[in-house]
Each structure stands twice: as C-alpha cells, then as structure tokens.
C-alpha cells in the first residue's frame, strides 16, 4: 500500500498473500487517510449548511432587503473560507503559507478593483439624479 508507485500494481495490497512490511507505517497511513477524509466531509457538510441558510432566507424573505444582502455576503465569505481550508488545503501551516499569501494579496487587488469600480460608478450615478 505504501510503496505502490504505479497504477499498474494497484492490486498489491488486496492480494491475499501480501503482508504489510511495516504495520506501524500502515497504521499511520490509515490515520492520515481518515484525517483527510474527515476534512473533505466536514467541508461538504459546512458548505451545504452555509448554502442552505442564505437560500432559505431569500426564499422566505426572512429579513429586510439590506440586512438580507449583508447576511448573504457574510455566509458567502465564510463558505469561501471553508472551501479554501477544506478543499484547497490553504491553511496556516508552513507548507501552504505561500498560497495563503498569494490568495490574500489577490484578495486585496480584487477589493481595490471591484470595490473601486462600484464605489466610483455608484458615486457618479448618485450625482446624475
């Protein structure tokens, strides 16, 4: 299971006569597998919840329009963070700090460009009426 480097030998670990060379390492692999699986499943459950709530709020018009927009924005932001954390594996660990910095930097550029567009053109729009 641990030293299979090629898909051609995929049945090695299921072969009845095959003995694992190191059970401790095998156990470690299984734990790592379970940890990864847990990350994906918790990501899915959280994402489903964070999707269901804003849809329900909009479907039943549970709030006034402006607080509805705010709630949708907060849920979207949290869900994006969950996706980055659980699916794209961007977290605070040393291995992914480059990716995290890149994402945050792009986020700043994005806020400046998209937010600036909305700000300037919204201002112009308000002046026209």
């Amino acid at each position, binding site marked *: *299971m*641990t*030293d*299979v*480097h*090629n*898909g*051609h030998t*995929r*049945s090695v670990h299921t072969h009845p006569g095959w003995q694992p060379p190191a059970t401790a*390492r095998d156990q470690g*692999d299984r734990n*790592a*597998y379970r940890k*990864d*699986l847990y990350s*994906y499943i918790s*990501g*899915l459950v959280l*994402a*489903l919840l964070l*999707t269901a709530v*804003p*849809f329900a709020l*909009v*479907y039943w018009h549970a709030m006034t*329009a402006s607080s*509805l*927009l705010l709630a*949708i*924005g907060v*849920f*979207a932001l949290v*869900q*994006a963070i969950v*996706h*980055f954390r659980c*699916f*794209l*594996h961007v977290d605070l*660990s040393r*291995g*992914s700090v*480059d*990716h995290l910095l*890149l*994402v945050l*930097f*792009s986020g700043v*550029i*994005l806020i400046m*460009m*998209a*937010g*600036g*567009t*909305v700000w300037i*053109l*919204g201002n112009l*729009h308000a002046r026209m009426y």
Partner: protein
Amino acid sequence: MSDRTADNPGMSLTAAHYHVDREDEVTFGFWVFLMSDAIMFGVLFGTYAVMVRATAGGPGPKDLYDIHSVLIQTVALLLSSFCYGMASLALKHRSGRRPLIAWLVVTLLFAFVFLSFEVHDFLSMFAAGGGPDRSGFTSAFFGLVPLHGLHVTTGCIWMVVMIVQIARYGVDDDTRLGLERLGLFWHFLDIVWIAIFSIVYLGGLA
C-alpha cells in the same frame, strides 16, 4: 503539494529533490493563474453590480432568475467538488486506478447536471426576452455567468483527457501533477460559483 510529502515522510526519500521543487513550482504557477482568473471574474462582478439596475425597461433579476434551479446547480457543483476531493484522496493514498477513475466519472456526472440546468436557465431567460442584447443588466449577466459555465466546460474536457491518460499510461508523475492542478481548478471554480449565486442570484432576488 508540499503537505503530501509531510504526511508521508517515507515516501519521497528516494525521489530526487528536483521532482519536489519542480512540482512545487508548477503548482505555484498554477495558483498564480487561478488568482489572475479570480481578478478577471472580480472585475466582471464589479461591472455586474454597476449594471444590475440598468434594465432599460426590460425584465429585471426577479423576472428572470429561478431560485430552485440555482439551488440545484449549487448543490450539484458542490457535490462534484466533493467527489473530486475523493478522487484526490484515492490518488494521494494510492488506492489504485479504478476508484480514481470512478470518482472522476461521478464528478463529471455532477458537472453535467450543473451545466444542463445552467443552459436550461439561459434558454428560459432568452425566451422571457432577457437575452444579452436586451439591456446593460442582461449584457453584464451574460458576460459573467456563462464565462463560469465555460470554465466548467473546459474543466470537464480536461477531466476527460485526464481519465484517458490514466487509463492509457497509469498514475505516473505527469498524470499526478495534472490531476493536482485540475483539482485546484475545479475547487476554485466552486468558489467562483459561491460568489455568483450569492451576488448575482441571491442578491438579485433579495
């Protein structure tokens, strides 16, 4: 990614450092592409936000959007993202070729559900007189949302190519790296979709 080698410390000892470095470099380059893509989407979101009230007397968001269809698309894309995660797990923990290809096929099926509901929505918008030439609002909509659909379609084609490569050549370093980048692309598209269903659809219906 680097956490793969951290999780399996005994695995890459025989591999030359060159491989790890090249893999990290290629993956980081792909991240840069994804973020430039994100900025392009972000600017189109800005355009849409500016244009959303410019309906020129034509149909507006409340006349054109169907919340049920959007919910189905959202769940389908999320499930396809999860299934791709299962495929990456099969890859990372070397479960073999068959579960890997099976998960990729399930991912494709969910993506197909997503795309067919999306195309159905676009067609009913056309039928309701809300084609891209109707107003500034519909132009901004059709500049943004179908572009994401086009990305998903490209991802599907890429996935078919990967499945063929795995079936033909097995899981080697090249297919592994390809699958890793396709995974980044696929999960990234789901994040763009969060912004689309929140800003475009739910924001328009709120």
